[in-house]
């Protein structure tokens, strides 16, 4: 094992979280009614670590569904703009799944790059990601086929692997290594390392790979104008579930909310699946039906992002698979596209 690792006994987890909470905002899986969501916690007992995956992805911690960009006051002949102070408190995103941690890497690329997005980047710079490996991936999970894995540390500063009464904690970055300095962590022994390796092996083996022919990107380019899209998307209702729950989808809208002479410009999530997303003021819409919009979603994830960001816009978390009201399964869609024909 090359990365620094230690042991965190489960009975010492609460004290570790307690110390994190003293200095930073901690976001963790919590139970809300029947579902698990990633929310800010104020006590270690709120965190639920025996769970499959959260209903919503953790992207909202860094890219909230609604965010104020600036406030203004505008009157006849004058205007003032005020930007919310950029000082972001340190954050820990604790106990998210490895797929979601990896999803943040794509957001990093999109919101970083040549033109840095200060709202995302300021939060991100002060964020530590502690993920929790999956011993029991869901039937809908396919992280392995998207280049990640149920116990992949990619995108995590610290990866925890559950080996019974303790976690093995592997640091994936300096931020993670720094966390290992906490007194709750103990030196790792060989027996525990072997257990962790077993968890990794077994969880990987339990996953069914998505059958992808090699050159999905090329097939997609070739199939852009193919009638196959009509067949693939016929059952699509055109709602935004798949994009809103997705850990990598990041499209947004900017709008003004005014109250008299003051107001604010906000950023809100938007979805390429909505008809108005690309409709021009003239009424012309380059993506007028579900077919074009669904195609955009697939092309963006599996052709455009691999080309521009060297990473697909999908980490295989399976949310769109389980939550789609009509079970339009993205795994089947990519499989059939990679074969060059309809399912």
């Amino acid at each position, binding site marked *: 094992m090359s990365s620094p690792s230690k042991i965190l006994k489960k009975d010492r987890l609460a004290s570790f979280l307690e110390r994190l909470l003293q200095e930073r905002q901690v976001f963790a899986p919590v139970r809300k009614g029947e579902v698990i969501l990633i929310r800010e916690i104020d006590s270690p007992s709120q965190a639920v670590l025996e769970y499959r995956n959260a209903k919503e992805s953790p992207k909202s911690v860094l890219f909230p569904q609604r965010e104020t960009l600036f406030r203004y006051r505008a009157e006849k002949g*004058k205007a003032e*703009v005020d*930007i919310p102070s950029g000082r972001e408190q340190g954050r820990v995103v604790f106990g998210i799944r490895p797929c979601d941690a990896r999803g943040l890497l794509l957001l990093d690329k999109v919101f970083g*790059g040549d033109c840095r997005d*200060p709202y995302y980047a300021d939060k991100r710079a002060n964020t530590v990601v502690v993920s929790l490996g999956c011993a029991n991936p869901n039937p809908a999970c396919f992280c392995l086929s998207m280049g990640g894995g149920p116990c992949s540390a990619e995108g995590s500063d610290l990866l925890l692997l559950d080996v019974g009464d303790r976690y093995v904690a592997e640091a994936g970055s300096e931020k993670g290594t720094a966390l290992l300095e906490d007194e709750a962590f103990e030196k790792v022994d060989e027996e525990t390392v072997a257990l962790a390796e077993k968890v990794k092996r077994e969880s990987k083996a339990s996953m069914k790979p998505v059958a992808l022919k090699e050159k999905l990107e090329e097939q997609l380019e070739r199939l852009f104008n193919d009638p196959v899209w009509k067949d693939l998307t016929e059952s699509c209702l055109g709602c935004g579930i798949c994009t809103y729950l997705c850990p990598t989808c990041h*499209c947004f809208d900017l709008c003004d909310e005014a109250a008299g002479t003051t*107001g604010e410009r906000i950023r809100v999530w938007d979805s390429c699946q909505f008809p108005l*997303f690309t409709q*021009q003021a003239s009424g012309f819409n380059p993506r007028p039906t579900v077919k074009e919009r669904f195609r955009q979603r697939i092309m963006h994830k599996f052709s455009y992002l691999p080309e521009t960001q060297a990473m697909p816009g999908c980490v295989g978390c399976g949310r769109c698979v389980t939550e789609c009201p009509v079970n339009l399964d993205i795994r089947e869609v990519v499989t059939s596209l990679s074969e060059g024909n309809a399912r």
Partner: protein
Amino acid sequence: MMENPYVPFLMRVEEILAETDDDNIKTFELSFVGKADEERFVYTPGQFAEISVFGKGEAPFGMASTPTSPGRLAFSVSKIGVVTGELHRMEKGDVVGVRGPLGNGYPLESFKGTNLVLVGGGFGFSTLRSLTNFILHDSNRKDYGELSVIYGARRPGLLLYKKDLEIWRERGDLRLHLTVDKSENGWQGHVGFVPDVARSVAPNPRNAYAVVCGPPAMIQFTLPVLKDLGFGHENIFLSLEMRMKCGIGKCGRCNVGSKYICSDGPVFSQQELSHLTTEAHG
């Protein structure tokens, strides 16, 4: 580029000029409220900016002015939606927000020493006006070869920038071909569609670039004409339009294939576009 790319700076409305006889297109001349903003705003023809009407939102417009006349920016606005409707209600002295310059602009370096054919239709002419005035400026004219401008509108009353057109007509170093789809009010000029005019004018493709900007139908029929005349894909540039929001390649809506019109464009060579899978252009 600004430190926070989402926050506009302020500009004041100095002049409002009704361009068309139906009053649907007005040109707004804006001055910088802050001196520092003026210094930061270094642009080339073909770039655009997002104009904010506080409380209503933003919309993108190509600069119709040129960097050769500093201190002011001009934007032509067609009254069509929420923001543009509100802009049309504005008066001299009102303040708007501006973010920019955005996009890549026309490839002026490549154009140097070559002949240029600018083909524009309707509202899409605004950045070609900027390009034309830029080239015609005393300090630039010698850097470029022959300049032909083919510009059409549905009818004479809808031609933009009539004062510029008058001046250009008087100049010996520019060939101006105006056309309208339909004549009216004693129009003395040419009647016909832009692609047909392009064919009859038959600009020489040797050492030349063509720049096309206009409604989709015009582009669709002009490209084959340019091809017939001998213009290669790499020598034809287009300025594309799509619904935009952020203007910096993040919000995800204005892509043609893997490129964002706002940040990779809006100006693309036909060569570049031929590699893109897209529903949007031509």
